[in-house]
């Protein structure tokens, strides 16, 4: 393979095009994946905000039943895996799964540790830090958002509540959304990019092979056949059908060969003359 022009020319082209395409494919896919995930986290944050706004009135009125109903209804929406509201102590106050209510959550678990890493809990975190991903007991890939419920003047001043104005956070909302749609979109993008990359690769390699064959290999083959033919036959013809520099090479070969034949003929004549003289 490597002792032929085709092999020597195509191997570097193949390595370079394939390698560079792979690098670009992986980097582009990583960038697209980041954008898709950032968008879905933003979407989940918005949804968490909507849930908080929906439950605000019920919380102000301290209406537990209304809160539970709102949360149950939201969790029935397709793609919502769970909705929970924790109080300040980390106890589940409301949940889409009734068995979770009044259960204590460890502050060091994933999702809580982002704010409760140190003794003084953080009161605000970035959008991406609020998100966590895991596989739930049903085997579904879930992205959950933990949003703090901030104290507001209406809460601190409400007659039924005992939250002092100095308390910044009253609890947290934890909403889990299925990642299946996001993962399916990513898989589809990946497949489309893979097909596109393969097509580009095949087209590039095929283009290079075709051009190489047309411009270099076929004329070289003709030149080789011409030289071999002229070695066999004593009568030489002008080289034809050879493009570019190969035509010049073939013509040079043709003139050298003619001169060589002439020299051979003259030396043969001389030898004949010498032997004729000797015979006389």
């Amino acid at each position, binding site marked *: 393979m*490597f002792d032929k022009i085709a092999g*020597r020319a195509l*191997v*570097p082209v193949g*390595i*370079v095009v*394939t*390698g*560079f395409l*792979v*690098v*670009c494919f*992986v*980097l582009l896919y*990583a*960038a697209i*994946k*980041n954008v898709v995930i950032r968008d879905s986290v933003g979407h989940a944050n918005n949804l968490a905000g909507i849930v908080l706004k929906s439950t605000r009135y019920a919380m102000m009125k301290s209406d537990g039943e209304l809160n539970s109903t709102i949360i149950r209804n939201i969790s029935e929406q397709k793609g919502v895996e769970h909705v929970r509201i924790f109080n300040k102590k980390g106890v589940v106050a409301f949940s889409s799964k009734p068995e979770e209510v009044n259960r204590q959550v460890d502050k060091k678990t994933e999702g809580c540790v982002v704010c409760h890493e140190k003794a003084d809990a953080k009161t605000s975190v970035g959008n991406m830090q609020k998100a966590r991903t895991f596989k739930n007991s049903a085997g579904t890939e879930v992205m959950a958002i933990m949003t703090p419920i901030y104290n507001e003047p209406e809460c601190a001043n409400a007659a039924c509540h005992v939250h002092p104005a100095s308390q910044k956070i009253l609890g947290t909302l934890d909403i889990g959304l299925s990642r299946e749609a996001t993962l399916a979109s990513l898989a589809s993008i990946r497949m489309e990019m893979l097909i596109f990359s393969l097509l580009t690769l095949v087209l590039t390699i095929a283009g290079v092979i075709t051009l190489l064959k047309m411009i270099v290999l076929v004329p070289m083959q003709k030149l080789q056949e011409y030289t071999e033919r002229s070695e066999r036959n004593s009568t030489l013809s002008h080289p034809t059908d050879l493009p570019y520099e190969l035509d010049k090479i073939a013509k040079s070969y043709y003139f050298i060969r003619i001169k060589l034949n002439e020299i051979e003929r003259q030396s043969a004549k001389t030898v004949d003359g010498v032997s004729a003289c000797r015979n006389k």
Partner: protein
Amino acid sequence: MEQTGNNETEALDDAASDPRASLRRGLTDEIKRLRRFSNRGLWALSLFLMVSTIAWRDFWFLPPAQEIVASLGAPPTPMVISLVLILYTFSAIILSLSRMMAGLRHSSSFCHVGYLLVFYLFYYFAEALPDNYWAVFGAGFTILCLESYRIWTFCSENILKKVAQLAYVERTGRLPVEDDSGLSD
């Protein structure tokens, strides 16, 4: 030890007295050197595979990325690292192809392993290694394969040339006229 020294002195005397032996030795040494040099690309590729294995295992011996970031400061974003990686891959490929075209004897394979290790580390510090591992691996594999191919073809061509010169020296006792300038390229 003393005997080895004597042998070397004798060989040098022989070489001085017989130019054909001196040329033969020079050419043979050059062929050996080229044979050793032709494996350089493969050694670099093996080293890169080793580095990639360590990166694949998430640099288990290093402290967590957060600790390093806390002490050294924030790394560049994965997007910036990726842009630099594309730029580096493109430049390295163009440079290697230019060297191949010019037929230069240049041995830069091992420094590429260093650059690629730095990319792995930056992605590790930016906590984006799992997403970008294959990009660095692909870039490294491409560049080092191309470099290996370049070094190997350069050495093969020169070994053939030196073997032909050696045969000429054996026949005539001197180097071909066009290569009298020296033994090494």
